[in-house]
């Protein structure tokens, strides 16, 4: 009897291992306490209020948020999609990394659920989420550039900015008092490629043609690199690793006068430097002196998709449609993570016309100019290549022209584009 018990115990222990391994994933149809079906949503954003609002407004499903960094989402999702198990019902990723998931063939075709709202998006975003004629996701937000600036510093020094040359001229004056005009990503890291891309966009430029070929002898790229190199070389910009304590510390110490950045960072500023409330204002991205019109550059924005591992893809797609393709959902996105709506009808809502006391009453949405569609291909490789070449340029080992050619040639060689 003792032996039998021992054997049984061992078998139970062994089996318990497998039982423990059978983690609830998207494939589950676990019922919440309220009887609703749970749907797992991977995101890095603090979108709890928006999710709560959706959970309360319908009785079918409960969206359960799993928060992790977007790097983790990309890594875990890549493995889960390849393994055929472990993916969530719904996930959010950056637009620049989205094509690799969209093209994997593992996205649920949302066409039947969301086709009626597609006219509300710019054509570039419609193209981004479409694969083989099927709609694979929706964009909840976009990230065009604006210029945040310290109104008190600009007023004290009598600074007025219209063009990028004005920025440089003003930077010369500020430098004498130990104030930097802009923070510059140095070392560039993954931010470098995005920041250069944003400035490129403000010149109607791109790294790639719409069909994914590298643009060679890219004059726009060269001009952007010349500007950045001058900012670092002359000491007009402050070399910083973005979003570190040092970075925010310099803002708080009044060392940084302005920041050309994507709109989403407004929320970051408010969170990390609340004591500067009322000192900032916002203006549109300056105009390049050789251009007739000013444009907003494009940082990226995000996409939300449903995976083919979801047991309730239609319900999941309905949530995505509500958040990304209705005015109500877009207002919630704006309230919870300061999203700039991708769905254009949302701009008519009074919420997006209000001023922000942190930015001295300025309305960030009114500072967004027209944007040029930006083309993302093989972004993981592109980020690494551009980051390295920028660092070499900032270190004086490459001139802006050499850096531009090195970027083009290396991307072409490594990606075959």
């Amino acid at each position, binding site marked *: 009897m003792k032996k039998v018990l021992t054997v049984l115990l061992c078998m139970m222990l062994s089996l318990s291992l497998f039982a423990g391994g059978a983690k609830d994933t998207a494939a589950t149809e676990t019922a919440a306490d309220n009887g609703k079906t749970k749907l797992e949503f991977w995101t890095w954003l603090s979108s709890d209020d928006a999710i709560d609002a959706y959970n309360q407004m319908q009785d079918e499903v409960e969206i359960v948020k799993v928060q992790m960094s977007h790097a983790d989402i990309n890594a875990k999702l890549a493995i889960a999609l390849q393994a055929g198990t472990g993916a969530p019902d719904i996930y959010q990723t950056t637009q620049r990394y989205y094509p690799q998931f969209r093209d994997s063939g593992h996205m649920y075709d949302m066409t039947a659920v969301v086709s009626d709202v597609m006219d509300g998006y710019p054509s570039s975003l419609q193209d981004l989420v479409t694969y083989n004629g099927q709609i694979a996701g929706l964009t909840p937000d976009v990230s065009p550039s604006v210029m945040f600036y310290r109104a008190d510093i600009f007023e004290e020094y009598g600074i007025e900015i219209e063009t990028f040359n004005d920025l440089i001229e003003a930077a010369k004056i500020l430098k004498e008092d130990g104030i930097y005009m802009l923070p510059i990503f140095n070392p560039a890291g993954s931010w470098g490629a995005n920041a250069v891309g944003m400035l490129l966009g403000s010149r109607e430029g791109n790294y790639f043609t719409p069909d994914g070929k590298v643009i060679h002898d890219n004059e726009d790229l060269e001009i952007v690199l010349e500007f950045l190199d001058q900012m670092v070389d002359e000491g007009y910009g402050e070399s910083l690793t973005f979003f*570190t304590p040092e970075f925010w510390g310099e803002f708080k110490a009044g060392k940084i006068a302005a920041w050309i950045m994507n709109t989403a960072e407004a929320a970051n500023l408010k969170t990390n430097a609340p004591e500067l409330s009322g000192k900032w204002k916002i203006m549109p991205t300056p105009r390049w002196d050789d251009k007739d019109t000013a444009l907003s550059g494009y940082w990226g924005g995000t996409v939300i998709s449903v995976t083919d591992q979801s047991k309730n893809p239609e319900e999941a797609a309905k949530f995505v449609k509500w958040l990304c393709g209705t005015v109500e959902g877009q207002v919630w996105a704006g309230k919870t993570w300061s999203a700039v709506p991708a769905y254009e009808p949302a701009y008519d809502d009074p919420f997006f016309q209000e001023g922000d006391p942190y930015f001295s009453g300025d309305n960030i949405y009114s500072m967004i100019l027209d944007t040029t569609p930006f083309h993302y291909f093989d972004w993981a490789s592109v980020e690494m290549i551009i980051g390295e070449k920028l660092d070499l340029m900032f270190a004086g080992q490459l001139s802006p022209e050499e850096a531009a050619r090195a970027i083009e040639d290396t991307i072409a060689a490594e990606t075959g584009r």
Partner: protein
Amino acid sequence: MKTHIDGRKAAPYFFLLPFLVFFLIFRLWPIVWSFLISFFELEDGSIASFIGLSNYATIFKDPTFIKSIWNTIYFVIVYNVIMIFLAILLAVFCNSPIIGCKKAYRAVFFSPIAMSLPVVAVVFDLIFARNIGFITSLLGIFGVEYNYRIFASMTGAVWAVILMRVWRGAGYYCAYFLAGLTSIPEELYESAMIDGANSFQQFWKITLPLLKPMLVFVIIMSTILSFQLFDEPWILTQGGPANSTLTLQMYLYQTSFLKQDFSKGAAVSYVMTLLMLAASVVSVSRQKDSASGRR
């Protein structure tokens, strides 16, 4: 034919079964699988075609991979030399009969390893911050201007990473050396003192030789762990500037998870394994040579 199972003999295997199942599935199989896929092209997570050593050839043609190898080897050597020297120094200090409050010192030396890495990174970021940092404030007292941004320097960034890692590791390995020191008989020091040996001679002729087994253990463990360096440079520099702090482990992460090339990533991991193995074999063989009196 009736098979008789001896319950007494079988019982240990049944008890081991949970571990064995776990080990085979979650430890051994990933090792075997990752080795296999380094020779194959993957398509949608499944093996598509045999490509032989193609992945290995590709990574060795990539200058970034070569740079990451050199960075890692440089880091492993410099870090281990400085860290082990400091750890022994701290251990000798803590073990010295003339030092009081030894437990307090031990706790202080050991505490950095218990601190959360992001917190440590924040502290180091603010120590080195050019305009608002600790060094700036300190030098400012003496009227000296500090205008060096270490994380933006291709030669300085790696030293920032080394410093941070040494600060975390020295106290931890000091505990190992302390354990080694306590096993050295006191009589040896007494005899040496009677023979007129000074403190340095005692350390050189008695302490260090008798610490050798622990030293080899620490070198092997620390070498293996430092080959896997990832967190510190990832948080502080993301491998920059210009890949000057890019380590093999970071290259592996970039290849496997950012570029999603799992088979090439597997090849990188086996090159890493070989390097770690080589470093460990060299350390152990030197210890054996030394123990057998050969030079």
